[in-house]
């Protein structure tokens, strides 16, 4: 009994710990500024409105009789709000491209590394893991230097390449462990029955691997979606090439409207919430970066 | 040291009834074995006695005291598990000392008792080692030493011999019995291995699907199985079951069907007709009570066909086919015959068990 109530208390505590910061920003994004700054603060949104979300993308919808302020009108005139929309569209193109290229490269390699006794396998794995050991700060400066020298700054290609340099090794690593852990007997049986390597993969491995591959693809999407440093350094200066994260930061540095900023960030984290729900079941099986996951037995 | 009594104890996992209204009593200093196939609720019963699981209903008594609300560490018991459950990062010495240290016994006493227990199990030379450096049999001894070191009033052992190799197991059986008789501690021992139960137990309780199937001295259970389950579960090779009916004609009562018939003595026939009138019956005969010959024998013998022969060296097991059914008979080692050969089979009248087919209970 004591045990049960202690457990219950911890469950509630963990749920509060995990959700409160998200709640706080959603709360702010749903209130007019005068309510946001009200003292004492409102713990539940007062007069909730979605107006900020419409304003973000340049809509003139007004509720609660609050006019768009002079600064915001200036910003609109100079096309700044379109920039946010464009940033969102850009990342919605770039992230799937990164995801697809990553999966095309990582699935065959992870399969081969996970299931075959390839020569120098451990050396290959060492290179993959080693690429994770370098702190990002040591990587982004040279990349900035590189893309500046070849005049690709502001071009989405530079961001795609920089993101791939991280996603491909990680996803290959995860898939190596994942393919290694799938049962092998059926594949062997298929080979004995005379299936070629690709047929065996198609009929005896893929059906079991598909959900895990889906979860991995979601990860490969989440990385560019969430990535900030490369996005900011490599596309930051460009009007047409900027992505959402990097545009948002410069935009709200100039246009410090808290509820608007909050709704912009909520839009940024919504996919994360969806991803969390999808990944939960696979996260223990995929062992996201656990080095022990791929050690050959 | 203690008598253990369960009264109407049940345990549910969700809607699944793992233990169903179990009531039995274990005598002081008794070596009591709970026997049953895997998943029948043996471990659950043992865990309830230990206090590791709460029963949904029923009471557990140690002597006259109800212990339902006493936590496991206060019940003065020791347990040994199939997996040995040694603390992986403690040495053998520290493992055996663990239950004493937790009870804050003086250092000198701990040292002395650990030494005694280790010597009793002949593992004193292993004391500085760690569990991963030991073989299965050695780990098993460490687990036992840890159990006896505290001199508890009750031992609970959950399949302690299942994880060691066959030869060592035979040796450990004898050693465990000697240890128990020496320490005189009430012991409840769980196993799925009927040979262990037959050779070690003072009394055995046979479980099936959460229910008590039979309880008694091993030989009584073997000789007089209370139902078809116990009859089929105990004994190797398992008992043969002949479906049959009872007929009386001309003052003679016979059991039989299309392929065979045996005469029943009048006393037995009367019991059967009292307890199971007009019922379909099952005649149970252990393979040791079937004899086979290539020529017709005196008395009730019937024809069958050889289906398979398994020579074991000391004896030979012969599978015979009667209609669509195959039965086993144990013959002498020098019995030889060809497959599909016709033979004569005779049932030893003293080895017959009669069951009611519908209720599955023994009738006579």
């Amino acid at each position, binding site marked *: 009994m004591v045990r049960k109530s202690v457990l219950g208390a911890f469950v509630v505590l963990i749920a509060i710990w995990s959700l409160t910061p998200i709640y706080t920003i959603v709360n702010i994004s749903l209130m007019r500024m005068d309510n946001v700054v009200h003292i004492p603060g409102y713990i539940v949104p007062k007069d909730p409105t979605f107006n900020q979300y419409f304003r973000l993308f340049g809509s003139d919808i007004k509720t609660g009789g609050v006019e768009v302020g002079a600064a915001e009108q200036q910003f609109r005139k100079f096309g700044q709000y379109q920039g946010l929309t464009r940033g969102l569209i850009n990342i919605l193109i770039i992230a799937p491209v990164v995801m697809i290229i990553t999966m095309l490269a990582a699935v065959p390699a992870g399969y081969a590394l996970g299931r075959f006794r390839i020569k120098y396998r451990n050396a290959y794995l060492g290179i993959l893991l080693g690429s994770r050991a370098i702190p990002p700060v*040591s990587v982004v400066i040279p990349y900035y230097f590189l893309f500046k020298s070849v005049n690709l700054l502001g071009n989405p290609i530079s961001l795609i390449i920089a993101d791939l340099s991280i996603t491909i090794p990680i996803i290959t690593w995860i898939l190596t462990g994942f393919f290694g852990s799938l049962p092998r007997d059926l594949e062997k049986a298929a080979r004995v029955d005379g299936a070629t390597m690709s047929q065996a993969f198609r009929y005896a491995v893929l059906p079991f691997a598909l959900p895990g591959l889906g979860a991995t693809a979601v990860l490969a999407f989440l990385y560019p979606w969430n990535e900030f440093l490369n996005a900011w350094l490599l596309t930051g200066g460009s009007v047409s090439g900027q992505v959402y994260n990097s545009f948002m930061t410069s935009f709200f540095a100039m246009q410090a409207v808290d509820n608007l900023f909050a709704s912009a960030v909520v839009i940024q984290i919504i996919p994360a919430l969806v991803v969390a729900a999808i990944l*939960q079941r696979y996260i223990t099986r995929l062992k996201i970066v656990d080095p022990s996951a791929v050690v050959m037995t | 040291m203690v008598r253990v009594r369960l009264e109407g104890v049940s345990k549910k996992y969700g809607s699944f009834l793992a233990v169903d209204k179990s009531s039995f009593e274990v005598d002081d200093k008794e070596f009591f074995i709970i026997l049953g196939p895997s998943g029948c609720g043996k471990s659950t019963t043992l865990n309830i006695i230990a206090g590791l699981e709460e029963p949904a209903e029923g009471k557990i008594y140690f002597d006259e005291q109800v212990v339902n609300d006493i936590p496991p560490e206060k019940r003065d018991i020791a347990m040994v598990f199939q997996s040995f459950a040694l*603390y992986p990062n403690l040495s053998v010495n520290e493992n055996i000392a663990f239950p004493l240290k937790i009870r804050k016994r003086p250092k000198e006493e701990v040292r002395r008792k650990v030494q005694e227990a280790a010597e009793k199990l002949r593992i004193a030379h292993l004391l500085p080692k760690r569990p991963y450096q030991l073989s299965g049999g050695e780990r098993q001894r460490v687990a036992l030493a840890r159990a006896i070191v505290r001199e508890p009033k009750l031992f609970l052992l959950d399949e302690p011999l299942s994880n060691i190799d066959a030869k060592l197991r035979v040796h450990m059986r004898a050693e465990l019995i000697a240890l128990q008789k020496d320490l005189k501690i009430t012991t409840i021992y769980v196993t799925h291995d009927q040979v262990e139960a037959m050779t070690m137990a003072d009394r055995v309780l046979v479980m099936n699907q959460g229910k008590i199937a039979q309880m008694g001295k091993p030989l009584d259970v073997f000789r007089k199985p209370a139902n078809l389950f116990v009859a089929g579960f105990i004994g190797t090779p398992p008992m043969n079951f002949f479906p049959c009916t009872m007929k009386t004609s001309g003052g003679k009562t016979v059991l039989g069907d299309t392929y065979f018939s045996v005469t029943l003595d009048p006393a037995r026939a009367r019991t059967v007709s009292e307890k199971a009138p007009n019922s379909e019956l099952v005649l149970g005969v252990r393979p040791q009570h079937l004899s086979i010959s290539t020529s017709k024998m005196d008395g009730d013998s019937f024809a069958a066909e050889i289906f398979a022969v398994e020579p074991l060296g000391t004896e030979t097991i012969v599978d015979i086919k009667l209609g669509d059914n195959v039965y086993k008979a144990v013959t002498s080692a020098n019995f030889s015959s060809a497959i599909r050969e016709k033979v004569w089979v005779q049932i030893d009248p003293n080895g017959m068990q009669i069951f009611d087919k519908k209720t599955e209970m023994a009738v006579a």
Partner: protein
Amino acid sequence: MNLTEQKIAFVLVVPLIAVAFFVNGYPIVQSFWLSLTDTNLSDLAHYNFVGADNYVNGLNDFFFQRSAIVSIRFVAETTAMVAVASIAIALVLNEKFRGSGLLKVIVIVPWAISEYAVGILGGFFLNANFGLWNGVLTNLGLIKGNTNWLTAQMALDWVAIFYTWNIAPLMSFFILTSLQTVPEDLYKMSRVDGASPFRRFRYVTFPFIRYALLIVLVLTTMAAGSATVIMYSMTLGGPGGATQTATYYSFVQFLQKRQLGYGAALSWYIFIFLIATTMLYFYLLTRRRK
């Protein structure tokens, strides 16, 4: 395995590994070369080779020294909090109770949020004018009037808390995976033995999560030691440099002061620090007692 398989596998793997090698080898070599020059962002074509000057300057740079101390404090605080939080969360998730599936989803949410957004969330949560934290504490009567939490003394601790909030979920799943290998029998044994919850953790649970904990410590140190974005989005490195970590400072050198060579040299110090710390963990957690 036959020859064709070996060949196919080779074709699948080797190009990718080669790319991974160059993609990661290039920045290492390049940043090392840069660190030996006085390359300036305004004019990449003209630079001088300066030898170890940048490294010597780094050691004598008061602001770098200060940022190194900030970094060490941040890594220490984060690692301690992540270790405790991830073990606690994993122990709860390892229990069977109704709604445990839902709790798993809830727990993993903070991990899926970008470091950038986490900093913004933290800033809003603690906002001196309208933050929820002030709201809650005021409503509970614990503080009178709104308080500024992101002061020079406390800001780094709060950044560390939010960074922990961000990365502890993934770490707790590592621990959870290893918790599931603790044998049920051993746990029962310890209850019969009457071991206290602390002893049970120490002798039953800990030996099985030790390796996972090592990985958690290494990964957390790596991540926290190079964290930059969260300081940028939560406190802009302030107030007064109180949350300016070494990585943050090296970025300032390179983006604001435009000194690519100096920034690269500083990033090498950080790299070396991280490798050294990681090796220390391996030593501490893998050495045999006695």
